[in-house]
């Protein structure tokens, strides 16, 4: 589950999930939901596999989102479905989607970058919570 929260100039993403794997998958969806109007209209026809290395969970989330954003920027690849396995030394993740098609997709924001400001990954009574602010 994800939602946006108020940040004056930019956009805050708040993600909740029962476990760490789904937290990272949902965070990826939250990012693409900020980029494109109707995320469910993005067909899962192409697959992107990524490996991200790192022990710090907050930096790992940052790097995972940063990699996805790079692939969107360089290849105009929109992704809507994700599977992630978070390990102690990094993660292995896959995303499914398709290249941006102006006839079917409406892009909403240009996310310039993921920021470190207020970056948060923590466990609570309900599972896991992440917060990240993206620069618009």
């Amino acid at each position, binding site marked *: 589950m994800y939602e946006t929260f108020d*940040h004056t100039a930019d956009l805050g993403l708040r993600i909740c999930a029962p476990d760490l794997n789904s937290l990272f998958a949902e965070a990826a969806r939250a990012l693409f939901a900020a980029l494109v109007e109707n995320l469910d209209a993005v067909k899962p026809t192409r697959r992107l596999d990524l490996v991200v290395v790192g022990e710090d969970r907050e930096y790992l989330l940052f790097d995972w989102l940063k990699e996805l954003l790079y692939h969107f920027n360089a290849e105009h690849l929109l992704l809507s479905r994700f599977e992630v396995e978070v390990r102690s030394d990094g993660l292995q993740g896959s995303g499914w989607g398709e290249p941006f098609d102006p006839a079917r997709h409406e892009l909403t924001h240009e996310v310039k970058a993921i920021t470190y*400001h207020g970056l948060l990954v923590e466990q609570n009574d309900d599972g896991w919570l992440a917060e990240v602010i993206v620069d618009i």
Partner: protein
Amino acid sequence: MGKDTFHGPLERVDACCWRIPKSYKQGMRVDGLIFTDERLLEQLKQDQAPDQVANVAFLPGIQHASLAMPDIHWGYGFCIGGVCATDPNEGGVISPGGVGYDINCGVRLMRSNLFYRDVKPHLRALVDDLFRNVPTGVGRSGRYSFDKKELRCLLNEGSLYLLGRGLATPSDIEYTEAHGRLDGADPDKLSDRALVRGTDQCGTLGSGNHFLEVQVVDQIFDEVAATAMGLEKDMICVMIHSGSRGLGYQVCDDALASLRNAPKKYGIELPDRQLACAPIASPEGEHYIATMRAAANFAWCNRQLLMQQAREVFASVFGRSWQELQMNLIYDVCHNIAKFEEHAVDGKRKKVWVHRKGATRAFPPEHPEIPAMYRKIGQPVIIPGDMGRASWVLVGQPGSMEKTFGTTCHGAGRAMSRTAAVKDAAGRRIDKELEARGVIARAQSRKGLAEEQPKAYKNVDDVVEVVHRAGLSKKVARMRPIGVIKG
């Protein structure tokens, strides 16, 4: 509006300046000084921006004070509207967060010999043509593409490279801050990712708050300065707001990644990871400076190519060449940049790194870096407002050198978060509302238009009033928008 409101101390210094004393947080090396007035003060306490002013005061080598302009609002790391000068001889640092992701985001203003009465009958066609021909929005490629070798030259030479390609004139270079080129750029230090993102994005507007506007000179406040710039009442101008596109964002991203361990390595204590920095005289600091300069040069080329495309559209709509239409650049300023400048600090002249994060250089009359034509009036400062109300042309004043390291505000500053602005616009057609006010607006994204609606911003007139009264810069002309294109 923000996650938390600010409850820290704000002491009145004078009618235009409030202080956050360095006793507020242990670790602050200097006070925070915010240029604002009674009216804007309440608004600025509504988010964490003042706290960010205090956080910047932690940076090693910071001089005088951590400063903020009246368009201050909550950013990431630095506040937007923040100014910080560091001295390399006092362990001063360079911080990519003090420049921002959009390196050399800035504004330029071009005049013409057309008046409102000439353009009004053709306005819709003009705006439609601009929207068709100037690439806007996310992921749009430009019509200019530079291979690796060309891109390298462009990153090295800035606007001068475009002069060689016949895409800029000597006068365009003359009226661009730093002549559209920072020395010491090193394109070889850019990552492949940054270069890939640069190949087809030069000459594209982008999204968010970037825009190209057709404006009318609404009111002149300083006849002498306006005449020097060739501005008259009712004259048509074009204002362009954009930056270094994906290339610049990538340069900042790469720098922040390489600086993750720098605070620990250099023993720097920081209250926010986004303030990551390194000593100016360190491998990490030097690397960032060389790549930041290359991205700044890219941004000037981007605005130059955007201006060229606008000139061509005007020529086609009005059936005369842009030279006949006298579409000359008045000035181009950057508002996200770090520059090595000479300033007086506590009565001593020294060279410092001035970080301007959403703040504009505003050098006073007689400053050697001002083009001869403007030497007597001061450096032109271009202040974009919102797309329904106004934008401004100011000139730098001596107060900027005394108080703010030669700096003034950069815009209206947001008053509403993006999510709040979208909620506020639910069920409304912002484009229709603007049309009723005489503004034709075209945007790729309706949500983008809602987020950027006039109400989402402070009134730029209030912001300009503060910098005018504080003696940082002086009002020359107020412009109102009549045509807007956005991403």
